[in-house]
């Protein structure tokens, strides 16, 4: 996959310039950024009908649009309403793709247990990760917010999950990721499940120091990170989001 040339449009990256589907994919990105649910749904349906590869619609249309919205939020150009409305628009597109992707896989790709850590109730990012993982065909067990290490571990055992994903928004709660991984280690499950961490205050160094297997800077990089951790190949070649996720 090639990255966009500056000439195309620097704010909507990851689009192949010389492709027949470039224009609708670009429109799809734009519709996510502009929070236009109706257009996102219509464009996605149209492209599916025209036989555009599902993962191409996902990885070059919907996800780059959401990434752009997230970047604008990070820069302070978007606020919580815009971020939430872009997530909602994204969901309209993913709802079109999800049954088709799952049909193709015949079953869930893998099971992910997810939650915000103990004492953290901020779940906007986590909910976006769920939308994205489900849209990619993963089965997600959402434990909600304020999840204790014990609860995480019970859910991993009960569901035989391959991935344990944790998020936090507060610097005061992020240490609970560390405690959860320590509990996991103590219970002998650390080797059976890969841990993935993210959230605004989480840094790659922190993730590495606490022994997490993966870190996502952006919610949008979660699906490709999960695939990487599990050794699953992307259907459409490699995901374009390598630069946002780090295998530690």
């Amino acid at each position, binding site marked *: 996959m090639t990255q966009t040339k500056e000439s195309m449009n620097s704010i909507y990256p990851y689009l192949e310039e010389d492709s027949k589907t470039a224009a609708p994919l670009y429109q799809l990105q734009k519709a996510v950024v502009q929070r236009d649910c109706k257009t996102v749904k219509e464009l996605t349906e149209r492209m599916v009908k025209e036989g555009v590869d599902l993962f191409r619609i996902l990885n070059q249309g919907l996800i780059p649009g959401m990434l752009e919205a997230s970047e604008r939020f990070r*820069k302070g150009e978007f606020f919580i*309403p815009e971020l939430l409305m872009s997530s909602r628009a994204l969901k309209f597109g993913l709802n079109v793709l999800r049954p088709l992707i799952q049909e193709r896989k015949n079953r869930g790709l893998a099971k992910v247990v997810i939650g915000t850590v103990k*004492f953290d109730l901020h779940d*906007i990012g986590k909910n976006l990760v769920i939308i994205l993982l489900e849209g990619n065909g993963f089965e997600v067990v959402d434990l909600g*917010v*304020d999840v204790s290490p014990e609860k995480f571990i019970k859910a991993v055992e009960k569901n035989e999950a391959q991935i344990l994903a944790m998020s936090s928004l507060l610097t005061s709660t992020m240490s609970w990721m560390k405690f959860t991984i320590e509990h996991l280690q103590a219970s002998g499950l650390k080797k059976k499940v890969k841990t993935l961490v993210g959230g*605004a*205050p989480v*840094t790659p160094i922190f993730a590495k120091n606490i022994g997490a297997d993966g870190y996502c800077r952006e919610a949008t990089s979660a699906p490709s990170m999960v695939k990487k951790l599990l050794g699953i190949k992307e259907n459409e070649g490699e995901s374009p989001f390598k630069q946002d996720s780090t295998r530690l």
Partner: protein
Amino acid sequence: MRENSTERRSGKKVLVLACSVMEKEIRQFQNGRLEFKFFDYGLHRTPENMAQAIQLEIDKASDEDYEGIILGYGLCSNGIVGITSKKLRLIIPRIHDCISLFLGSVESYQKQSKEFPGTYYLTPGWIDKGQTPVSKFKSYAQAYGEETARWVLHEEMKHYTRIVFIDTGVYPREPYRAIARENAEFLGISYEELQGSPNLFKKLLHGPWGKEFLIIERNQSVRQESFLDL
């Protein structure tokens, strides 16, 4: 600052760089040696911009003859991470955010957040900045209509179970209390009041700086790790 407080009169001024949400609480401790510069309350939302804005003022201050710099900021979503002072010593409260300052200690905030993690704190300063659920709803509704505003606010606030009004003692209590209460009613969640304490503000601005503070020596940087064992 060689000494451990701002009380002794060396003649040099101490620069205080702080968030405007606590301007009034901070100004009450003017002892003739402090010089204030207040920043926009919304900087914590964009931590990278926050560090840049503060760094710029620190760099500017290096050319002036200050004794040292006090930050009226905690870790604030990593908004002070990476800040370095080449010439002047930095004094920083070892706190995650301003609520510890308003309540007067790290311990009292920790007690609250463990017992009631779903607390939305309001102080007169935050209310004046329009950072209440009711004001947010109004501005969302103006931009996107009532239905969307209701959905957004629900998504943003659904896990909060109580509003706590902290009376910091430097504003008239009644009008702010009424607004805080109105917000709890609007969300249909419980309402409580806590008496703030000026203790941590006082220590921050006058010293002595014990273990509740980080003292960043010249050419050292502020690091996230220094706050994580709190």
